[in-house]
């Protein structure tokens, strides 16, 4: 119960001080809007194509929304030393890190609905397999948040966190099959694609929205869960090693 009080208040504080602040709201809402708009315009008047790019836009909105927040809630707080206060509190490190990431996960999930709502104005969404779409969105939000966490605890400066996360994010746009299939990539890039968690999330979304997934839903879920666990525990290990001197 005590741990839960701490968890809840850390989450609440982050929401109040970071997520609900205008710059982050705009980052969270306008950014997906911009992505969506850009791709919709690019795809021309062809309504069919809106549907074909929707999975990619949803995945990107979540990826960019979540990863950019961790550099604030974690790296920035570590830098100004208020994170030490959290490390000194009698809360298990696992719970603390979950509290610091839950906000970003929720934020990412909310972000994913921006392109969906926009698309709903243009295309018929009745065929979307929501029971696959929802888990896919949640898993992408969790895995990209933990990727952001992994980066945030691996660096010392906020700007390093941002640079480093771009190093991951931009290649992922092309390598994870968001807008064109992995099969069309040069053969030497394909192995890299399968090492990136977003590949599996995007595949699930393709399945849910277009009914065209190349990997079975079960395997996608298992692989994503594996990446979530791996990234989370690697991050915890880094915190223990680097921040508890």
């Amino acid at each position, binding site marked *: 119960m005590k*741990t839960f009080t701490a968890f809840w*208040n850390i989450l609440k504080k982050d929401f109040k001080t970071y997520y609900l602040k205008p710059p982050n709201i705009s980052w969270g809402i306008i950014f997906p809007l911009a992505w969506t708009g850009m791709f919709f315009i690019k795809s021309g008047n062809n309504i069919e194509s809106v549907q074909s790019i929707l999975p990619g836009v949803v995945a990107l909105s979540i990826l960019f929304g979540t990863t950019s927040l961790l550099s604030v809630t974690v790296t920035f707080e570590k830098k*100004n*030393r208020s994170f030490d206060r959290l490390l000194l509190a009698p*809360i298990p490190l696992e719970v603390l890190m979950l509290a610091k990431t839950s906000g970003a996960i929720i934020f990412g999930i909310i972000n994913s609905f921006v392109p969906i709502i926009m698309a709903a104005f243009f295309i018929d969404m009745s065929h979307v397999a929501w029971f696959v779409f929802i888990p896919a969105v949640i898993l992408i939000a969790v895995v990209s948040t933990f990727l952001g966490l992994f980066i945030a605890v691996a660096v010392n400066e906020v700007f390093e966190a941002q640079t480093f996360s771009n190093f991951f994010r931009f290649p992922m746009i092309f390598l994870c099959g968001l807008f064109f299939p992995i099969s069309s990539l040069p053969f030497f890039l394909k192995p890299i694609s399968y090492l990136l968690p977003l590949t599996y999330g995007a595949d699930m979304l393709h399945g849910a929205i277009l009914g065209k997934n190349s990997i079975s839903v079960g395997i996608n879920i298992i692989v994503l869960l594996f990446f979530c666990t791996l990234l989370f525990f690697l991050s915890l290990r880094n915190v223990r090693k680097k921040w508890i001197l």
Partner: protein
Amino acid sequence: MKNGKHTAIKVRKITKSFDQVKAVNGIDFDVYTGELFGFLGPNGAGKTTTINMLTGLARPDSGNIYVNDIDCIRNPKTVQHLIGIVPDDSNLYPELSGFQNLCFCASLYGIKKIEREVRARELLEIFDLVKAADRKFGGYSKGMKRKLTIAAGIIHHPSILFLDEPTTGIDVMSARQLRLIISELHKKGTTIFLTTHYIEEAERLCDRIAFIVSGKIIRIDSVPNLIQPIKSRHTLKIICAPGITKLKKAMEDNFPSMKIIIQEEGVLRIEASKPIPVGPLIRFLEDRHIDVFEALRIKPSLEEVFVDITGIKIDSMKNEKEKSGGTS
């Protein structure tokens, strides 16, 4: 247990290195329950590193730490329930108000909403911050920040409190107010571990003091015991014109019962076991055309003991500190 006293903190042979630097080099000490224990040393002595190890923010390379008999290295989270920590700089959230900061810190210890609001108000009252309660912490003055940081450290009524240089970098009035609050906490039975570079502060507040220099504890004792050996010593400081170095030998011959120390050109320190007659000394110097500007008796104080034991010049320590205190 030792002499019927419970041990709140037990430290055995802890060491900690950073790269080439041995920040803490095999220190041992006990802090008894209810005691106010001072850790006194110059910059870089290893005070903060020691606190970090005692509170679970750093792991020693070797050695053992027990807080209320709990192994602090294995179970830091259990220990963290019992202790309050006031770090050397004020690391609360700049974008939250004073009141919100206190409530947030209380929530980290699992305190319920109603209770934490009552406690936060109570602390704002004690620390004279009621008027600033709803202002953002980022806009507080340094003294106010310090006070709120201490309030946050005791929000959960810890039985053991760690204070890292609580009065560094704030004005005399606020420092005095803080010392009063610290004494109050001590009187109410809180065990307090305090680091400081202000020798006077340590002397006034602490039951026992450890001198730490370059990661090693040089001496631990109670204030009266530390001062005892120099109590019967009489010290005189003479400030005069330059040119005394070459007179040292002659002075020693003339005043065989006194120990003559030239601290620097123009500053003479004289020690004796009996009261020192000032007239003959001044006459001796003036006869040799050395103008004497000032002669002052130095009372036996902890400062003297510290200089004796550590060989560190107090003035240099103070100056260094004032600078660093001003920026942190």
